[in-house]
């Protein structure tokens, strides 16, 4: 890896960049007083709401007693990527949303307390787990995002020999490339990768499964395979001038890894209203765009961004055009001038269960812009075809044990998320549960 995982947290961006982590770390005093507010519910709803079921009252009380080491261990036992999750989880929809104090009071700041314990563990370079005695079993994990790292780490703890193949130059998946620095600095993701490596996982970056290694090699060299490849490229809108539209994930990637070279327009349009679109609009504003407008063909009721994200981005000064669908990019020799949209109206529910937007005749309008970014979801994973796996709505189909239609090949994370919303913490849980199934298979096929 090129970027040192030793870089201290929060210290790589200048304070003026606007991309520094949005929430400051809690001070010792803040953490202790906040943790004292926790009622320590029994069989707590926050723990139920957490997809990885971290024993939240337990780690919070340990913060209160000054046992930060024990607190971090409690988190890691359920979730090896607790540092990323403490930053990127939609806590309003999960643990904090379920907090019993939420109804009349302020819920406990669970995410920030978890970050406090995690930052302690990483800044003190604490180690919690040692791999069990080697089982001489080999597992290939394909894709080093949260699901892959989680699965690889859990398997390594159990003594299996794990190789993690990653197509990109850096491991970490969306945590490294796709979550804006305001929420998670790249160093946080890379420190987690380093921690997984310390558990004995070989991380091989720059290796694209299919060509290197080939599918045959994969099957021959490994007892089991776990696919955590995430999703593919952003789909085409199929409109004229689309080649001048910037891909949202690349936009975010630029803001994370090379912010000084990222070109940000003065008048930016973001197409889409999901989590990534919100992030694109946020960095455009933070990096100097005077005007940022999000275009969505349905209304705020159908958008997939969380309510707290919508509130946040409005406070950032981002404008919205609902019920508008792009039809053409107007440009002058590649220099974007405007986005032509048609007004829409909501009709009958479509396959997604949401009302289908229909274009209104003769309602075209021209929205001036000097930069257009699209974040309208991602293509389904193509590896399913490569490995000849059954799919469900284009996603890799798995059974209750996360096993695909090909025995010994397991999958988890965004690439199997045919139902429900994709998130980092769900991917971590997939990886953890899949690791248990893989372990069982490896032991049973002794």
């Amino acid at each position, binding site marked *: 890896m090129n970027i040192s995982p030793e870089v201290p947290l929060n210290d790589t961006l200048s304070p003026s960049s606007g991309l520094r982590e949005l929430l400051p770390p809690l001070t010792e005093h803040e953490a202790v*007083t906040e943790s*004292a*507010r926790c*009622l*320590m*519910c*029994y*069989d*707590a*709803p*926050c723990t*139920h*709401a*957490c*997809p990885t*079921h971290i024993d939240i009252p337990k780690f919070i009380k340990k913060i209160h007693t000054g046992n930060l080491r024990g607190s971090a261990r409690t988190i890691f036992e359920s979730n090896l990527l607790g540092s990323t999750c403490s930053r990127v989880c939609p806590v*309003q*929809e*999960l643990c904090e*949303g*379920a907090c*019993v*104090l939420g*109804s*009349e009071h302020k819920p406990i700041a669970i995410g920030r307390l978890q970050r406090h314990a995690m930052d302690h563990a990483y800044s003190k370079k604490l180690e919690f787990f040692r791999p069990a005695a080697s089982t001489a079993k080999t597992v290939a994990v394909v894709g080093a995002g949260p699901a892959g790292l989680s699965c690889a780490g859990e398997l390594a703890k159990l003594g299996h020999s794990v190789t993690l193949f990653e197509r990109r130059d850096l491991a970490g998946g969306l945590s490294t490339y796709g979550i804006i620095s305001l929420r998670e600095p790249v160093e946080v993701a890379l420190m987690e990768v380093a921690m997984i490596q310390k558990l004995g996982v070989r991380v091989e970056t720059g290796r694209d499964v299919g060509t290197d290694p080939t599918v045959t090699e994969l099957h021959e060299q490994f007892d089991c395979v776990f696919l955590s490849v995430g999703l593919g490229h952003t789909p085409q809108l199929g409109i004229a001038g689309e080649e001048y539209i910037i891909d949202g994930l690349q936009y975010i990637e630029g803001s994370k890894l090379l912010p000084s070279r990222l070109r940000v327009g003065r008048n930016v349009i973001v197409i889409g209203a999901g989590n990534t679109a919100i992030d694109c609009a946020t960095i455009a504003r933070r990096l100097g765009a005077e005007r940022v407008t999000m275009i969505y063909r349905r209304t705020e009721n159908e958008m997939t961004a969380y309510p707290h994200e919508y509130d946040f981005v409005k406070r950032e000064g981002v404008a919205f055009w609902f019920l508008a669908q792009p039809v053409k990019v107007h440009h002058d020799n590649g220099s974007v001038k405007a986005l032509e949209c048609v007004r829409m109206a909501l009709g009958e529910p479509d396959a997604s269960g949401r009302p289908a937007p229909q274009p209104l005749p003769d309602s075209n309008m021209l929205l001036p812009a000097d930069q257009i970014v699209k974040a309208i979801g991602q293509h389904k994973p193509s590896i399913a075809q490569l490995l000849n796996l059954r799919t469900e709505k284009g996603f890799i189909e798995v059974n209750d044990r996360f096993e695909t239609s090909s025995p010994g090949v397991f999958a988890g994370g965004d690439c199997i998320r045919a139902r429900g919303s994709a998130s980092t913490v*769900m991917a971590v*849980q997939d990886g953890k*549960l899949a690791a248990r199934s893989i372990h069982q298979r490896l032991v049973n096929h002794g």
Partner: protein
Amino acid sequence: MADLSITFAGIRSPNPFWLASAPPTNSGAQVHRAFEAGWGGAVWKTIGAPVLNVSNRYGAWSYGNQKMLAINNVELISDRPIQTNLREIAEVKRAWPDRAVIVSAMVESKPEAWRDIIKRIQDTGADGIELNYGCPHGMSERGMGSAVGQVPEYCEQITGWVMEVAKIPVIVKLTPNISDIVMPARAAVAAGANALSLINTINSIIGVDLDTLEITPNIAGRGGHGGYAGPAVKPIALNMLAALGRDSIVSGSGLPISGMGGITTWRDAAEFLLLGARSLQVCTAVMHYGFRIIEDLCDGLSNWMDEKGFATISDVVARSLHRVSDFKDFDLSFRAVARIDQNKCIRCDLCYVACNDTAHQCIDLVDKNGKVIPPSSYDQRSNGKAEAVTTRPSVVVRELDCVGCRLCYNICPVEHCIQMVELPNAKPSITWDQLSKQQAEVTEDWQQMEQYRRKMGIRIH
């Protein structure tokens, strides 16, 4: 508006609140400011034998987000020259004729030393004298303070010396560091004291520093027991106050009692009055928040008295004292059960775990279909706010099995969510005292007890 003024052993005070003899009454300037803030009286920090103090003299016990639930100290009596104290006492009394100025004293256990200090205090024009028989640290090693209070004979003898020369009311301050608070109180009565006050501070060690392994607070590598006071000691003080009120000799003497020990709010104050205190002394709360707290002490007490229809402090004093009883006089047929208001319940399940692990296993987790389920019985794959909140079971008391221990009531974080509901007396009232007189065998033999229970329909869960 209720009349808060009192006359305590002849000492008049516009309200019952006095600063206790302690750091807040260390100097004339402080007492001036306290009186400006509205305090009814002040018991001057103890004057007497020469002393020297040390640093790190106060320790504190904090819990959760609450700082200083209790303070402990190894500060001695006043370390300022006695002439300075006497001059300032005289000045304060001249400036504040309507306030109670009482001087706490402690000298070597010699008749001449006591007679001398009493005369010098009387010369200041002070309204009364408090004899400090309570200081548990330092002074006691020199045969003063609690070394006197812990031996009723000494207490009686020294009080006798004082009473020979005293022309103003004398209050004897008792130490709680004794097995029966009534004994030194009776000694003071026997010696002719005019009033009693309690409690002084309790022997304590605040803790040990887990980094240095030194005692907290650390005094050049050492530490030791200090006097413990503040909100945490209030229940102990209330019990000792009630013990004096229930003793026929002490209460029969008619001596008024000045109550103290953890009084922080007007609510605490009202409780001390209800159990028999006729004036109230405050220290730790003032050391935490300053003299300004007198405003709500008076305002809150006055509003409460108006609401209750009490016109004067005397109307309140000892009103609840007759209810303090021994276990043997409790009605064994009295039954109450816990009832949970499901609309108020926030489903923290603290009552469930407390009852299940440590009390009488009579709270169930009940799902939406009315089925009793074990904890953590959700599918490990379920998650999210909606799932966690909507599938959470209710906590339900099995009233037949509930012994009415009141643990759940005590820990429930929601006001008025769990109530202890009194059940109609199905059986005739009987106390242990009556039972042991009427059916002694039942109270002495387990088999007889079993038979009695069966006959009376008493189930033990």
